[in-house]
């Protein structure tokens, strides 16, 4: 058994499946991310990463949503499937 890898969404690579564990944000920004489907337990897929990693497109709850670095660096999750 391998230890589950905890990582920030910003460090995800194309094809990775990550299960969200926590959002380290408050207020309107947190609310907005929750409304978009970035809730604890949700599984997101890294769809596209721009060269500088900002923004990153994720597949979440059947919709593609791009997050800025400020947002994706505050969301933590468990790597479920490695994209490579």
């Amino acid at each position: 058994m391998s230890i589950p890898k905890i990582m920030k969404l910003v460090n995800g690579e194309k094809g990775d499946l990550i299960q969200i564990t926590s959002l380290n944000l408050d207020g309107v920004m947190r609310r907005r991310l929750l409304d978009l489907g970035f809730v604890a337990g949700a599984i997101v897929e890294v769809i596209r990463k721009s060269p500088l990693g900002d923004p990153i497109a994720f597949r979440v709850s059947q919709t593609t949503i791009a997050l800025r670095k400020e947002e994706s660096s505050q969301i933590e999750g468990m790597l479920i499937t490695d994209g490579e």
Partner: protein
Amino acid sequence: MGNSYRIALAGNPNTGKSTLFNALTGLRQHTGNWAGKTVSLAQGNVQYKDKTFNLIDLPGTYSLFSNSSDEEVARNYIVFEKPDVTVVVLDATSLERNFNLALQVLEMTKNVIICINLIDVAEKQGITINERILTNRLGVPVIKISARNKKGFPMLLDTIDRIVTGAIECEPVQMTYSDDIEKQIKKIEPKVYELVGNQLSTRWVSLRLLDGDEKLLNEINQRFGQRRQHNEYSTVI
């Protein structure tokens, strides 16, 4: 116009609200949701039996917590303008996402219809939806339609008709929160009642205030504060 009723269409972007609006009203509205644009609400009429339903196409949003001006417009319309019925249009192929907004609406207002659109696409994907179970759990009518194929319209219009005549009584399911939050709601609800009376759901307003929604508080103060001043003034006269 005693026989005219306002029916608001709410929902996530791209769920087919405008398609439904156009099909029912015979108009050709295309209201984009791009940022910075002054939000104007498309309105059009549908004749049904002896009644006129005035449809209002609200901006499509994922939420109604006023994170954006679109959300604020839709939220304010539902809460303060009080349409006779709010129809929430959902995409049958992504109900999980769409129910975020639908459940928010059920907390805000009583007369709600859950209208599951794009049912033709869902069927092709092998998705089956049991609207009876959903109706039972949610306490409001759930109807399946395909706006593009004009399927399910008679049922939708009939249900609107029954709600406005009182033949159907909606009892939206109440979300229960953690003990701590429920305690806080109980604590501030009486104060909220003093402020808004029966005009708004005191439970919903309490929840929003606990969440620190200052914009809502300002809106309430503006709308209800003025009215109260006005009343005081008229009693002095």
